[in-house]
Every structure is written in C-alpha cells, then in structure tokens.
C-alpha cells in the first residue's frame, strides 16, 4: 500500500479528463463526494469549453485533511480517458506524479514527461462486466488504490447513485470498481501511491457527526437566498449564473414562491424590482452581459428606493468574452455602471460559506437600506465546489427594515402615503401594496415626499442627499483581516482569490515572511478609512485580482488618497498581481511574487 509524503501543503490533486460528454463530471463528483463523506476537505473544479459535446473537459479535486480554499498549480494524479487529456494536462502533472490511462486508446507520454504512466485496461474491465461506459468506475477503483481510500466508501456511493436502476447495474459497477483497484495493485506493485493524512474528524459541526456539505458557490448562494426569505426569482440563463436560477426553480415551489425564466435580463431585473416594490424578497442572477443590460433598471431601483438583490457571477469579458473562464472584471460595472448618481451596496463573498451568509445579508441590507444590493461572485466561486462543514440556517435573523405601521398610514385628508419622508438616516418607512392608505407613486423621475414628480432644485438636492445618506449606516464586516497586524506584506483582494491569498499567507509565514490578508467582503460602501489603517501598517501591499485593468487597485488607490486628506498616513508601495488568462489564481503564484518583491526590498514612498 502506497505510503509516502503528501506534497503541496498536505493536499493531493486528482484529476480526470476526457471529451466533454464522457462522464467526466459524474466521475469527478463521485470521487469528491466520497472524500467529503470521509471527512476530508475537498475543493473541486471543472475545466470546460463553451462547446456542448466534444472538446476536452476535466474535473480536478484537491483534497486534504485541512480546509482547502484554492486549486493547486500542480496535479498529482491524472486519470486520462483519451490521449488529448494527456497532451493537454501532462505539463501540470507534478514531477513524479501518477497517470492512470485507459490502455484502450494506447496512451503515450510526451517525451521528457517525468511521470509514471499506469496503463490500465479500463474499458476492457468495464466491458467485461457489461458496458464500456463503466470505465470511469474502473478508474475510480484504480485511483482508490493509489490514494489509499477504502472501497467501501465508493460502494456506498455507487449504491446511492444506481439504486433506482436496480441491483444488477449497481452490482456490475461494484465489480468494475474492484477490478480497477485490483488491477493496479497487481500490475503496479512498486508504484508509490499518494496517501493523505487521515481526516481530522468524521463529522462536522463539532459535536454533531453529520457529514459536511459539498457545495458550489452558486448552490451556497441559492441556499442562502432561500433561507434569507427570497420568494421570487426572475432570471435569464447565462454561464456561470444559470445554476442559481435552476436551484430556485427547484426549491421555490416548496415554499410557495415563484421562479420565472424571463425573455431577457431587462425583464428579469424589472420583475424582481417590481416584486421588491410589492414587498417580496426578490432577486435576479446574471453574468457580465446581463449585468450590462440591467444597468438602466438598477438605477430605477435606486431612485425608487426599492429593495432587490442582484447577483453577478463574473466571467471573462467584455461582451461575450470568455464565457466559461474565470475573471473578476465586472467590478467597475457593478460599482459605476448605471448613469446618474447612485450609491451602491456591493458584497463580494470569497468562499462558499460566505456566499451562503452573504445571500442572507444581502436581503437584509436591501430591505434595511431600501435599495438594490449587488453581490459579486466570480466563475471560480460560482462553480467550484468545496467542503463546507456546516451551514447555520438560523445565524442571521431576517430583518425587514422600516415598514409602515398603521400609525404611519393614518394621514388625515390625504389619500396618499408620504413614502419618501426625510429622515436623519435617509431611510423612511415604506408601505407595501395592499396596505390600506399606503398608496404612493414610485417613479424613476425625481420626486418629492409623496412620490410626485418634482423639478424643484431644492427638492432635488434634498432627495439626492437623502438617498446618499442611506448607505452611510451600512453595518457589516467589510474587511476580513487575517494574519500579522504589522505585516511585511498585506495582500488585498476580493472574491474567489481569497482562498489562494490565505494559503499563501500561511506558507509565507512558514517561510518567515510576515503576511496578512485583507479580504474585501464589502466593496461598497468602500471601507476606505479602515483599509488605509491596515495599509499604513504594512511594509508592502499586494493587490490580487483577476482582471487586466486593476479595477480593484484603482478603487483602493482613490480611497487611500481620500483617506489621507490630512496627510496622516504614510503608505507603502502597492504591487499587484493581475491574472486575466481565464485561470484561477494559484497560491504559489502569490507566494512567488511576494518573495520576489520582498527580496527586492520594499521601497517606501511618501504618499
């Protein structure tokens, strides 16, 4: 039984690849679920093209005994179901890595490739038990041997999956599984497998021995939305956001809600905003192209002070861009896209767990501050799945904000409700359609307290200021700071790179470099003052983001300038890591960059 040291911060990365449509997904998912059930922390992700069938696709799993928040730049085991998988992926395989390939296609290693090829007759094994389609299961058996995973876990998983298809199917799969395992054991007795440290705990959640969840960001967000009281979803399919709509379509019926697939994104946001106007927690989800189309109506929600939640799952832009690739380039559009003066609330979860809670927070903020709340996700966060030990549906109580009371609705002589009353916080009670005496006009034109259109200069200023004031009281943990309070390097980022930054921080600390991470979870209102404090205490700053324009860095710099109006701060130099080739940030990229700039010294500048 293999028994050697685990590489890459005690994780293993296992990958299976084949042509799109060849079961890569279900194979990968089964492996991931088995590992998750065993109590491991799993982080998995797919690589796929925007083709439907054909085209290479693969599924990677990074697994370890401790939480895993990012993909690795290296694979340890590659299961290749065709030659293209080898050709495209061998370079990522670590030296000394293992490759399981189906003998069927006569796998050949490119010259110079330092990995061990285990040619296993996966198809043959599968066919011997009935059908070639089971070759993926044979691959799982082979992998189990190399990763030292007991087959019982797979047996259970296969049973769950094929239960409905009858015992014959299930039994055949189990047989194939075992044959795959045994084949490697028998034919590659000298191969050193990779073995993981045992999982820390079988259960999750401290005491309760309940299996951990294994979720994508989209699933986590949708679960959060349900828990957060979302009862209406209007959306339009788009990669990588479609799953949110799909999830809500599946679950809203269970709570009496409604999900509508609209004709386009304008209809989607308009319906959601209208539902918000009508007193329902409503949302829409989209990606860049849809976000662009939603800009006008986003402004309407602002000026009408209507709560609504809009999730943008970013992908490569502009225009169609790279629809199936990771990017974080919608930040500017999210913050500044609509015409006119508006103040945004923009959340940016960095992990699947945060996605769950931020969905709930988003609805609370939307109703508390009576405005749209945007949530920035990104493709890696949306689609990558990971182990989440526990999600607490009761942690965040629902807060519906200021709603008109009977008292508010008594307004003698008037049949109308003064919806837009001035107040210190800028927030005024809203009435809900159906409430007697609550009638008012919500209009996209500037208006007075009853909602009637007004072009008076004084009213204009009062109303613009009212709306601006509303977001001043946003109360949320804007920056999640981890690590040394006076670091050699402070990494700043938002969204999915959080995992890589945290991992890098730990690795750097182990190398004697004091590191810290400022994860910006609330991007608007931007926590400029707070960030200036952190920045001024660091020797160097590294802004990590997945776009070419340095969209986050621009905002950070503007905020640092403003925070320093009185010249009290001295800021260190600001470096950046901008990755915009469509691939997630790897921890090692951050680590290398930091080491290099620390070596070259951090020239302080007087800003």
């Amino acid at each position: 039984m293999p028994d050697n040291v685990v590489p890459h911060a005690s994780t293993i990365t296992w990958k299976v690849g084949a042509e799109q449509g060849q079961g890569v997904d279900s194979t990968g998912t089964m492996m991931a679920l088995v590992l998750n059930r065993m109590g491991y922390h799993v982080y998995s992700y797919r690589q796929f093209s925007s083709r439907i069938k054909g085209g290479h696709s693969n599924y990677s799993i990074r697994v370890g005994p401790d939480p895993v928040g990012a993909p690795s730049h290296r694979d340890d085991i590659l299961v290749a179901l065709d030659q293209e998988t080898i050709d495209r992926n061998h370079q990522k395989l670590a030296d000394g890595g293992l490759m399981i390939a189906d003998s069927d296609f006569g796998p050949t290693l490119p010259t110079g490739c330092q990995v061990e090829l285990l040619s296993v007759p996966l198809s043959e094994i599968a066919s011997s038990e009935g059908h070639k389609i089971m070759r993926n299961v044979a691959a799982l058996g082979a992998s189990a041997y190399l990763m030292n995973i007991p087959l019982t876990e797979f047996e259970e998983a296969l049973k769950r999956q094929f239960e409905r298809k009858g015992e014959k199917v299930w039994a055949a799969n189990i047989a194939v599984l075992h044959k795959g395992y045994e084949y490697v054991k028998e034919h590659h007795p000298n191969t050193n497998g990779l073995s993981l440290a045992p999982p820390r705990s079988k259960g999750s959640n401290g005491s309760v021995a309940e299996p951990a969840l294994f979720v994508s960001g989209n699933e986590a967000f949708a679960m959060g939305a349900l828990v957060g009281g979302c009862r209406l979803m209007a959306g339009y399919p788009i990669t990588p956001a479609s799953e949110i709509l799909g999830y809500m379509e599946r679950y809203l019926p269970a709570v009496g809600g409604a999900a509508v697939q609209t004709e386009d994104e304008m209809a989607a946001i308009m319906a959601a905003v209208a539902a918000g106007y009508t007193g329902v927690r409503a949302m829409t989800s989209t990606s860049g192209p849809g976000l662009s189309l939603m800009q006008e109506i986003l402004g309407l929600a602002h000026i009408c002070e209507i709560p609504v939640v809009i999730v943008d799952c970013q992908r490569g832009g502009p225009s169609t861009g790279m629809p199936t690739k990771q990017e974080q380039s919608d930040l500017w559009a999210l913050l500044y896209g609509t015409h006119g003066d508006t103040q945004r609330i923009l959340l940016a979860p960095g992990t699947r767990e945060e996605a769950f809670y931020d969905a709930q927070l988003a609805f609370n903020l939307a109703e508390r501050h009576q405005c749209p709340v945007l949530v920035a996700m990104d493709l890696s966060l949306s689609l990558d799945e990971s182990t989440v030990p526990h999600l607490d549906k009761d942690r965040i109580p629902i807060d519906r904000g200021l709603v008109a009371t009977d008292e508010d609705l008594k307004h003698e002589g008037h049949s109308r409700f003064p919806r837009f009353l001035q107040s210190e916080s800028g927030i005024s009670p809203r009435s809900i359609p159906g409430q007697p005496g609550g009638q008012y006009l919500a209009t996209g034109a500037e208006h007075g307290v009853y909602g009637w259109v007004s072009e008076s200069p004084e009213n204009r200023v009062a109303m613009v200021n009212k709306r601006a004031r509303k977001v001043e009281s946003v109360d949320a943990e804007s920056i999640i700071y981890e690590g040394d309070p006076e670091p050699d390097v402070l990494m700043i980022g938002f969204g999915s790179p959080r995992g890589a930054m945290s991992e890098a921080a730990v690795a750097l600390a182990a190398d004697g470099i004091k590191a810290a991470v400022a994860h910006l979870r609330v991007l608007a209102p931007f926590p400029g003052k707070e960030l200036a404090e952190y920045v001024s205490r660091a020797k160097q700053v590294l802004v990590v983001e997945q776009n070419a324009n340095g969209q986050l860095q621009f905002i950070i710099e503007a905020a640092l300038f403003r925070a320093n109006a009185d010249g009290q701060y001295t800021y260190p130099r600001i470096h950046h890591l901008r990755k915009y080739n469509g691939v997630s940030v790897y921890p090692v990229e951050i680590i290398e960059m930091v080491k290099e700039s620390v070596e070259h010294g951090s020239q302080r500048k007087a800003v």
Partner: protein
Amino acid sequence: MAVSVKQFKTESDSWWCPGCGDFAVLASMQKALADLGLEPHNVALVAGIGCSGKIGNYVNSYNFHVTHGRALPAAMGVKLANRNLTVLAAGGDGDGYGIGVGHLTHAIRRNINVTYVVMDNQVYGLTKGQNSPTSDLGFQTKVSLKSIEKPARPALSALSLGATFVAQGFSSDVKQLTRLIKEGVQHQGFSLINVFSPCVTYNAINTYDWFREQLANLDDLDEESGRDVTDKGAAMNMLREYDGWVRGLIYRDPDSVPYEERIVGYSDESLSQADLSLSDELWSKIVSEQQ
C-alpha cells in the same frame, strides 16, 4: 362596498395638454375601477415612459412609473409578488409597441393576469413629435422624416401571438372604453386594450375627427353580423378586413387560464405576506442533497 370614482383620483395636477386623448383614458380607467368595486390599495398601476405614462400620477392606487418600455415585466413582478392585487399596466404606442414590444410578446405568451392599456396616438408625444411604430406610412411631423415603415397593427399581432383578450377603444367614447377596461380587468389572463388617444399637439393627422371617420364600432358591427367574440379566426378576419381600424371588444378566450394558476407550488396568498422562515424539514432535505 360602493366605491366612488373620486376615491381613484389623486391631488396631482393634470399635466397633459388640454384636449389630449389621455384624459379620457384616465376617466375611463377610474370609472372602471370604481364600478368594479375595487379599493385603491388593492390596485397597482404600472406605467411606462411617455405622456401616456403620466396616467399613473392621477389614479389613486399603488403606482409604479418605470423605465421606458418595461411596464409589462414590472406588472408581472407586481402580480407574482401579490396575486391578490388588481394589476394594470399603461403606456404609449412607442413604449409598448416600440421599445417594449418584446415584453408585450412574452406577456401575451405567458397570459399573466394583467390589464394593459395602451394610449396609441401614433406619435412620440413626450419627446415632441417623432414617428412611432403605429405612425402611418408617410406620416411626418415638424421634427421627423416621412415614415417609411409599415405601421404596427397591435390587435392583429396580439391575436397571432395568442392573446386571450384584445380590445380597442377611442378617447371620444368613454362609456365604451370604461366597459372594455372593466371587461379586461375581469378577464382571467392578459388583456390588451389599445386606445386610439389623439395627441392634439404633435399629431395633426390622426385627430379626433380623423378617428371618428376611420374607426368602425364593433358594438354596432357585431350586432349586425352576429360575430362571436370568442371565435379567434373570425376576429382575425375581421381585423384584416378593416385593417385594424375598429373599436370595441375584438376577442376574448373564455377558457383562458392565467399564468399564476399554472405555476407549480405557487402560493394562493400574497408572497408579501408569507412567513419567511424555512422549516427544519425542508432544510434537512436541502442539506442532504449536498452531502
């Protein structure tokens, strides 16, 4: 409970040009709502952008004045949020048949229970007189070129898209229009009421007199011909015969089932009243699917 027309009026100053056809649409709508015994707080009126869209300022109800062309998706959102409200949408020919015609198409396909009143003056009023999708071929104003596009024929198009209720009114006949709006509101599903509502400022061609000449009144015609308003083929043929220049009830599908009633699992109560907590049972199910 008797509801008076006055209850549906607001304090907002009238804004339209004296003589504008939209006054009559407003009066008809208020009367219809009152006649139906509805209460202002149970009515929502969503309006688009244009002179016509100002109608939302004068009807005492919950009013939502949205962006140009998007009244119908908004009306859908309101209706789905609270299916117990009576939801109307209103706007102009540019708003509804120009920029917004895509949404109209899909609202018809869905058959959501919303009454849509379009004030069709064959021109862009608010922006001071450009051609609209219903402008006649050759139509021109001070600021526009001669129209070279085939004018839209909303009633016929709506029928061909599967509309379950289609009517046309005329601002000179408040009584008929009131009746049509009432029928539209009572209809179970989407109702399109296209109203010929003259713009006295920018449309010097399609005037009240012009319409009086142009429009055949179905109230009379049908009595003569015995046309069955639930016969779609007959309705389409009639519209083609008159090239759309008729007023009255054009078609009604007595078997119409509104969208809301087709949504699986959708609550009978207003979603705005819903208890938002999630049962432990459902939560367990949700969690177990992720393990």
